[in-house]
């Protein structure tokens, strides 16, 4: 039931504007991404209404020209500061936090493979790359870009990996559906008339 249909709306449920404010409050406090389901539970509303309110809130953030933005990350949302302001934040915090760590070619390749084929085992990643990738996969898990997504039902029960909300945030994606079509990556750097 949409809360707007409730006869007690003014008494029991916050208005649409208030929902957005509550979302903003919760996301601000959390810092980390908060699941839509959780907000829906707190507001005693349904996921669809919250998702709508969230999108509207995100639009408002963008229109107002603020430094913060509301990111929708798959099934969760997060408030972050736009990248343009990072240097001010660094001076303000006077510390090395959020110093950008550069990715190796291997790490980027692995992220691409996982992003497109998840969930995948380390074995599959190594098959695609042609070389052992264990160390880098572990590093990516530690740094929060990959996470374990259960085991494959095969001999040895190997662990499968997928991308995280942090991955979406740091690569400017709202969800995995935003990934460019894999075929769009020109397969070869040749200008010949090769037919696929």
């Amino acid at each position, binding site marked *: 039931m949409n809360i707007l249909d409730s006869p007690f709306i003014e008494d029991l449920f916050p208005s649409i504007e208030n929902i957005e404010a509550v979302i903003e409050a919760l996301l601000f406090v959390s810092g980390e991404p908060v699941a839509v389901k959780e907000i829906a539970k707190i507001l005693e509303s349904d996921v669809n209404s919250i998702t709508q309110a969230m999108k509207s809130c995100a639009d408002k953030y963008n229109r107002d020209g603020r430094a913060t933005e509301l990111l929708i990350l798959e099934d969760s949302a997060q408030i*972050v500061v736009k990248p343009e302001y990072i240097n001010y934040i660094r001076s303000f915090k*006077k510390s090395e936090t959020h110093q950008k760590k550069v990715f190796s070619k291997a790490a980027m390749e692995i992220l691409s493979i996982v992003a*497109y084929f998840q969930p995948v085992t380390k074995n599959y990643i190594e098959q695609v790359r042609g070389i*052992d990738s264990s160390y880098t996969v572990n590093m990516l898990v530690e740094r929060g870009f990959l996470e374990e997504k259960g085991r494959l039902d095969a001999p040895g029960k190997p662990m499968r990996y997928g991308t995280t909300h942090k991955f979406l*945030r740091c690569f400017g994606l709202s969800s995995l559906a935003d990934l460019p079509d894999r075929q769009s*990556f020109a397969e070869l*750097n040749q200008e*010949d008339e*090769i037919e696929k």
Partner: protein
Amino acid sequence: MNAALNFRLEAFEGPLDLLLSLIEKNKINIFDIPIALILEQYNEYIESAKLHDMNIAAEFIEMSARLIYIKCRMLLPRPVGEDPREELVRDLLLYAQMKNAAAYFNERYEYFSDRYEKDPEAILTEDSPEDESDFYNLFPAGILSQSLKSIIESNRDKARHYNIADKILPRRPRASVSEKYIYILRKAYGQKTLAFGDFLKVENGVVRIDDVIAALNAVLRLVMSGALICGEGNILECEFELNRKRKSKKQ
């Protein structure tokens, strides 16, 4: 030919990377790879890398064998329509695709990774853990180590041992949690009450961060399993003692 191949093997992510490079340099049609030529160049490359006394990853040698195998099959009679190179070409194309995707992602990362995320608050969830060993949902252990990390980062220049922690923290902790259990239980058995500091190993007046994290993990598990009782206050204030009234559980 040799001069053109004089780049370093380390520049390649793996044998597929090397093959793609050779294909590109020779302007070969990937759908009709001259196996003999590629094999020859590939092996020349591996040999020159060996001459420079570099450690060749086993995968490079394996690819060499694979190329030889394909070449052999090309020389032997085979059913019409069967191309021994097909699987290799598929592997090369997929890898090339992923390489390009990686370059694309790298560019995006350059910009979007500067998005600033506020450090998480210690928020407990009501959800019970899925299985008994999943106690991290009950205790904000991850939050604790995160807080420790941010304290250390903000005090970076203050103490020598924080610099050590800075190097250790990004890697996996070297202190063993299971060894910590034993250490803590032994100490608790001997003494009436203990503080968290008693569980740490101090070397030259310095405490290692991986030791602290192992101690934290061990203490939390022991308290949760009932082996250790803790008193009031936060982890740095409260007193711990061994639960001597506990009946031993058969596993």
